[in-house]
């Protein structure tokens, strides 16, 4: 059971949240201009890192905000959380 630090509501148990996968995968500005390979890379390919991982969470049962969590995927240690816009 993870305690997810919602930037608004503070740490809450993970069943209040929805996991949104890897962060920092912006939607291409002009999908039509992409090759099938480039589109597949956006759509499916993931770093799936062991260790430091930036990921999206939504406080579904709480404030309904999406935000970014940084977590070590091996130890599940939470390294930080940030609000969209505030994060690099």
């Amino acid at each position, binding site marked *: 059971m993870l305690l997810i630090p919602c930037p*608004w*509501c*503070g740490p*809450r*148990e993970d*069943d*209040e949240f929805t996991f949104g996968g890897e962060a920092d995968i912006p939607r291409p500005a002009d999908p039509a201009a992409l090759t099938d390979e480039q589109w597949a890379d956006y759509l499916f390919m993931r770093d799936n890192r062991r260790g430091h991982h930036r990921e999206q969470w939504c406080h579904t*049962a*709480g*404030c*309904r*905000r999406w935000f970014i969590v940084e977590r070590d995927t091996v130890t599940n240690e939470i390294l930080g959380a940030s609000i969209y816009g505030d994060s690099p």
Partner: protein
Amino acid sequence: MSRPTPRRSPLGAIESAQPRPQTAQLSERPFLTHINLRADPADAEALAAIQQVLGLQLPLTPNTTAANQELLAAWLGPDEWLLLSQHHRSDSLVTNLQAALTGHVASVVDISAGQTVIRLSGPSALDILARGCALDLHPSVFPPGACAQTLLARAQALLIAVDDTPTFDIIVRRSFAPYVAAWLQDSARPFGLHFPTSDPA
């Protein structure tokens, strides 16, 4: 077209719960006005306009409420609030707010019929809630005036600490109300309590 029509609350049956102040009591606060309000907290003008209508300042601190005689505003998100009132009619409150907010990016939506308020009050209220709520509701952490959207068993709920009896208002969506009431009733068993309530099914 304005003849009064009978309204039905999801928990009609527990309105008649026998008060057991010495332990805890469960009751429904039906037919309150519930308004979902969205506005940009950075839009000072909009906030002022809202304060004008409500007569109170919207709480900007997460998980807190602000209240006056007529109305309570609960923080739901950085740009979202729930307005709860026994005093205001929902349609007039919506109209006034929408009027006050013309020209601003905001949303005022009546959801009164979509949810209800369950009130749990009494010395064992905390222990009963602890059966299904993972939050630390100890008064040192969750004093009167605090609120939190969270899970109560397997239902989403908005908890509001009302006073230090302690008393909690539990706001749930209409279709979940029977389940939540049944859960609270079951959780009260270790304290020898039985609340008359409708079957969850």
